[in-house]
């Protein structure tokens, strides 16, 4: 593989029902920075049906060029339809870097595309950069410890990475204009081995955790569904939401899709985060690091979350949480 022939940064512009996903704009912002650093072009890759109007929006968020593949067969995402179109596009235009949002679609699409073009893919990145040689460095937290692995793909192109939604900031809109290139789609319904019978999606009625100003979170140390109610009560008094670690979700105390905070869950940015019964492995901490103030309640003064907190309360949450509820209730009365 002659890697010098591969130039430019690409971003997969994911849309659902004609609307661009925020994560695509987030990675466009990061892609713009990388492209500028490399002195190369930033292109968005847009697939769907009747999606051409989105090209303008992609330009406004940073794309120099937008490749549009518009066909009925691409209306709803299917791996079997999308991956060959992207494979052909990569082989023709040879991008150096290809970034994809880590949504259900992105996590399904990226590995297949990477296998088709025989290249490396880093998963669930929380940060991106380029080294002195102009190679992509993807930051991925590893091994449940306090380790950040930097992953490189030196000899294969494009260098691919999926990026967790919500980790990068959405850029400001500009009045940039892009060159729009329409791609001829050769795939027909006959070539696709999967059929979508139904898509069901319902926006949750509760405010998403990402937007909560106050979050009370619990981990495995909470111990029971009964104890978990204490956290829910504290959150209710504060007008906040309840978050959870993966083990707490595994125990069935919280709903993973809505409440799990961390590298493979949600990134939250509350004013106030209160964590109880959480040891604080890096996968969780990385999801709360943008909180304005972090309060940790843990019996173990040496738990990793205590160092990562502004206020560390070394005590049993079963005594502290009720006391906090009392104290906040007093405030409410004032």
């Amino acid at each position, binding site marked *: 593989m002659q890697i010098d022939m591969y130039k430019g940064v690409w971003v997969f512009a994911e849309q659902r029902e004609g609307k661009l996903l925020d994560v695509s704009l987030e990675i466009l912002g990061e892609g713009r920075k990388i492209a500028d650093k490399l002195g190369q072009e930033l292109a968005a890759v847009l697939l769907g049906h009747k999606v051409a109007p989105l090209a303008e929006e992609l330009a406004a968020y940073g794309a120099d060029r937008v490749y549009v593949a518009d066909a009925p067969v691409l209306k709803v995402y299917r791996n079997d339809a999308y991956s060959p179109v992207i494979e052909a596009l990569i082989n023709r235009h040879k991008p150096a870097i290809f970034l994809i949002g880590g949504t259900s679609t992105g996590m399904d699409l990226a590995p297949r595309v990477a296998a088709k073009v025989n290249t490396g893919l880093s998963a669930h990145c929380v940060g991106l950069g380029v080294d002195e040689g102009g190679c992509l460095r993807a930051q991925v937290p590893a091994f449940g410890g306090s380790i950040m692995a930097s*992953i*490189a793909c030196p000899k294969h192109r494009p260098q691919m990475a999926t990026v967790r939604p919500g980790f990068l900031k959405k850029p400001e809109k500009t009045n940039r204009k892009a060159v729009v290139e329409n791609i001829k789609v050769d795939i027909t319904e006959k070539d696709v*081995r999967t*059929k979508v019978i139904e898509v069901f999606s319902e926006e949750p009625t509760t405010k998403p955790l990402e937007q909560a100003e106050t979050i009370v979170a619990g981990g495995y140390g909470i111990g029971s569904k009964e104890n978990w109610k204490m956290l829910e009560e504290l959150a209710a008094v504060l007008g906040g939401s309840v978050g959870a670690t993966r083990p707490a979700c595994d125990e069935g105390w919280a709903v993973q899709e809505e409440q799990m905070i961390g590298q493979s869950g949600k990134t939250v940015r509350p004013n106030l985060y209160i964590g109880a019964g959480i040891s604080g492995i890096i996968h969780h901490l990385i999801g709360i690091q943008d909180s304005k103030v972090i309060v940790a309640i843990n019996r173990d003064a040496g738990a990793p979350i205590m160092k990562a907190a502004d206020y560390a309360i070394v005590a049993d949450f079963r005594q502290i949480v009720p006391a906090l509820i009392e104290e906040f209730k007093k405030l409410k009365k004032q």
Partner: protein
Amino acid sequence: MRPLNMIVCIKPVPDSRYWDKLSLDPKTKTLRREGIPIVISPLDTNAIEEALRIREARGGKVTVISMGPANTVEILAWAFALGVDDAVLLTDRAFAGADTLATAYSLASGIKKIGEFDLILLGNESLDGSTGQVGPQVAEFLNIPSVTSVNKIDFVNEDTLRVRSKIEHGYMLIETRLPVALAVVKEINEPRIPSVFGALWATEKVAKQWSAGDVGVDKDRIGLGGSPTYVPDVSNIELQRRGEVLKGEPAEIARQLVEKLRADGVLPEI
């Protein structure tokens, strides 16, 4: 309905209870697993369970395949105890240090050597790496369709199935045909635990062990050398804050905290 040949890809992962004892090899930047007990990656047990249920419903054969050092036979013995018919371990120093692409290529090569298959099942992501990449990549190397995040599998007829794939705040119902690779999530089923009979059955069964040469893989595409990605650098993340310790009686701590939060300007309006 005709019986099915099913293959379940399972991954040995370090038992999470021992994660604090893991270390990185400073030279290869890969995980040192010596001395750490291994278990089947949890979602892979859901994949085994689903295969066993399909076998119970329509007959067939369940073969598990894994890749790893010799001690990986421990998790294959567990799979036998659960009731799988056959087990294959790809084990060779040449396989070591593989990233997802090299792993998927190796597993797909092993599956081709096993022979005929109708259905490939895997856990949606592993406990340790959690990339979720190997399933779709195995399918790509086998040139069969794949569906990820599957929480329900129903056969419509002999060769057609409808699977429910989880998406954000909902699901997609997808119809596809055998052969297909499905990556399953936790809520698809409740994995069984081995019975006494299963444990006895396991003692009679021996996993096949295949080297890179046995499988006939392209040596440039396996192991560390065949992996496009590598880890040039690992660092400790510093997520340190002031860590001010609050002490005293619970009520006193609560009072202190409220004062401090007010001073910080983060007390919610309640």
